[in-house]
């Protein structure tokens, strides 16, 4: 089992080395969303990591337009020259660049996309031996993680603890509060939903984090049972100095008191996100009005005009003709069904007509309760 952490300097790397950590993520300022290090600083870290026989992984997760990617591509190649053999990437351009321009392997950041097995299989097939690992998104359910393990057979990396990034814009939106400086602000929604965020502005734009932090520490054993071997902890935004040590210890022992201690020190609200279940699609059925669907035969058309006690106007959309005395069934948008016998049939010049024709507008006698957009069928 492998615990992976971020490190920004030699002291941090050394501490991880002492604790037996074998792999560290390095974050160049030009490539990584929250990176703070220049090329030379990253170079120093890479050399130190390699000297300690640890594995340096460069994070390249900024989404880049053409000018930006051209500006940083040289830096990426220089990391390869320094001995970096793995990049964590999200952007399709970055994936292609690493695949085509370097010999490095790819740790693919699943992100908000790639939420089905076909997508994961696509990347496995496309990258072939170059795909080292899939970095599973915090939004993935336990069921989906299990499904990837079973169907894709690719090493997975799971986030155990860290912040939840909910939105990312390249625009710097806190200038009026922070000037051009990097910084963080608490953001509270004044409208529906008790939304509270933590907004970070840096050179790459503005990032919104959910007010609760992500933790699967309680599920560590379940994940191990799924044969997950790689776990990541991201403490870049937390200042408790000895938390890393506690986490490494807990990772090895899974001691309940150790977990309690971590949570006490952590002090932030935690959530497992969508790990247990994801019902964020449940709302869709409510948004779709089933009563506005044509789910019966003998469709005539749609009510487009209603004048109380006088008439209904119907746009003839179907192939069924209607005439005087035809029996109709009319389904209202709120699900009521009304029956009507046609007593008169007129055209838009208010002349009596014998029957309707396709795409015409006809007028029939009024029936109470029928509203605009009701659907009209010939009654069996």
């Amino acid at each position: 089992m492998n615990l992976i952490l971020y490190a920004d300097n030699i002291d941090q790397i050394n501490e991880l080395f002492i604790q037996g950590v074998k792999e560290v993520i390095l974050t160049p300022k030009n490539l990584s969303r929250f990176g703070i290090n220049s090329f030379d600083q990253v170079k120093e870290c890479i050399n130190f990591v390699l000297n300690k026989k640890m594995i340096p992984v460069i994070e390249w997760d900024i989404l880049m337009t053409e000018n930006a990617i051209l500006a940083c591509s040289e830096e990426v190649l220089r990391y390869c020259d320094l001995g970096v053999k793995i990049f964590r990437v999200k952007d399709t351009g970055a994936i292609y660049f690493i695949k085509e321009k370097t010999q490095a392997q790819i740790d693919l950041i699943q992100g908000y996309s790639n939420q089905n097995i076909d997508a994961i299989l696509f990347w496995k097939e496309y990258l072939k031996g170059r795909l080292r690992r899939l970095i599973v998104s915090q939004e993935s359910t336990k069921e989906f993680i299990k499904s990837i393990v079973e169907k894709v057979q690719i090493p997975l990396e799971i986030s155990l603890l860290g912040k939840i990034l909910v939105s990312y814009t390249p625009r710097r939106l806190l200038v009026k509060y922070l000037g051009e400086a990097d910084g963080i602000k608490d953001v509270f929604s004044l409208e529906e939903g008790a939304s509270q965020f933590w907004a970070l502005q840096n050179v790459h734009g503005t990032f919104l984090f959910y007010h609760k932090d992500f933790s699967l520490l309680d599920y560590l054993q379940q994940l191990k049972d799924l044969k997950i071997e790689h776990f990541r902890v991201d403490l870049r935004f937390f200042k408790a100095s000895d938390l890393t040590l506690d986490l490494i210890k807990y990772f090895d022992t899974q001691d309940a008191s150790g977990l309690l201690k971590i949570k006490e020190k952590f002090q932030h609200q935690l959530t497992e996100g969508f790990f247990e279940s994801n019902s964020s699609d449940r709302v869709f059925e409510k948004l779709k009005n089933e009563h506005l669907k044509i789910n019966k035969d003998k469709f005539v058309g749609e009510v487009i005009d209603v004048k109380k006690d006088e008439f209904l106007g119907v746009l003839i959309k179907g192939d069924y003709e209607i005439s005087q005395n035809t029996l109709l069934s009319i389904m209202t948008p709120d699900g009521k069904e009304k029956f009507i016998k046609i007593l008169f049939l007129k055209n838009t010049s208010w002349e009596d007509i014998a029957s309707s024709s396709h795409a015409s507008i006809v007028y029939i006698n009024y029936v109470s309760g029928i509203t605009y957009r009701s659907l009209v069928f010939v009654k069996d």
Partner: protein
Amino acid sequence: MASGVPELVAPGGSFEKLQVAISYGADAVYIAGENFGLRTAAFNFTNEEIGKATRYAHSRNKKIYVVINAFLHDKDLQGLCEFVKYLEDCKVDAVVVSDFGVISFIKKISKLNIHLSTQNTCLNSYGALLCKEIGIKRIVLGREVSIDEAQMIKAKSGLEMELFIHGSMCMSYSGNCLLSNYSFNRDSNRGGCKHSCRFLYQIDNHKDYFYSSKDLMGLEHLSLIGNSNIDALKIEGRMKTLHYLATVVKAYREGLDQLKAQKSMDQSQLFELSKVMTRDYFSGNLITKADDQSVFEKGKNDKTEDIAGIVLEVNEGKHILLSVKSAFDRNDQLEILPFVGAAKCIDALEMTDVSGKNVERAKTATMVKLPFTPDIKTGNIVRIKRKK
């Protein structure tokens, strides 16, 4: 870019909107089926309607693109195979897809043209080369890409490039926002976006719409685009009104036609765009990168002209039949937006219902008759002129 100017791609949120988009000058319309799209609440097209829409568009030499742009989970893939095969049978011109799993699936079972959706956030030529390798025909670029960059991506990849030219903008990179997921348990990447970015927030002691973007408007940059080899320009807004659709499509159609005729741009189109609801315009990232000045700080749109209705029937010499979309009074000044040319004023003094009875106030979701006006055509939009 067959005609020498980019293809104008407009939204078709319903069959009625599709007809309006085509009538006012769209070259292609993007629509969604009942599933797999991102606008769950829109009146999406049934399979039968997609077939009808395609026949309607093709008979007018226009194209239909069907969006399959949600990031689908495994359980959402049910029915996709049948849907794709149906689309192929219908001969739709392309599908607009965001998910690489869905793209590879479609490639396996059909020969449909595939456009990469903007949701996939393709922003550079390396991403485009990846897309080329897997058989994607066109890329709908992320809205963070400038005209210059789009031109470079096109030159390096050889793929068709489609650029957003008008409409609402996500503050976030498209497809990279989970505000609704965590705040409302609604998956924004599967059609549940709650538009929380438009909410009022408190930062320090200030109330601020800091995450709400102004709307993109690229009309003024058409000449630059004309020289850029970009293949298509996209108008955002399957959920937008008929009024918005007609006005915006017409403005860009006329702008592109002037470009084709090498005429200088007519300022009247800019004026027309000011008549539809907007969160103030800016040029997005088309020229320079958007900054904090791109925030729509007012929260609410300025009231502009409303649609009165759409002409459903013209009875030569007798009457026009108007499907009323917003209520108006007999004394209101109305304005017809013709498919080509300047708007024309009409009045509603002789307004009746269909049976010939006088109507003082035309109510929403009814039909009224107005006196016949020469040159008015079925499908024209009628607007209510705002009282100054």
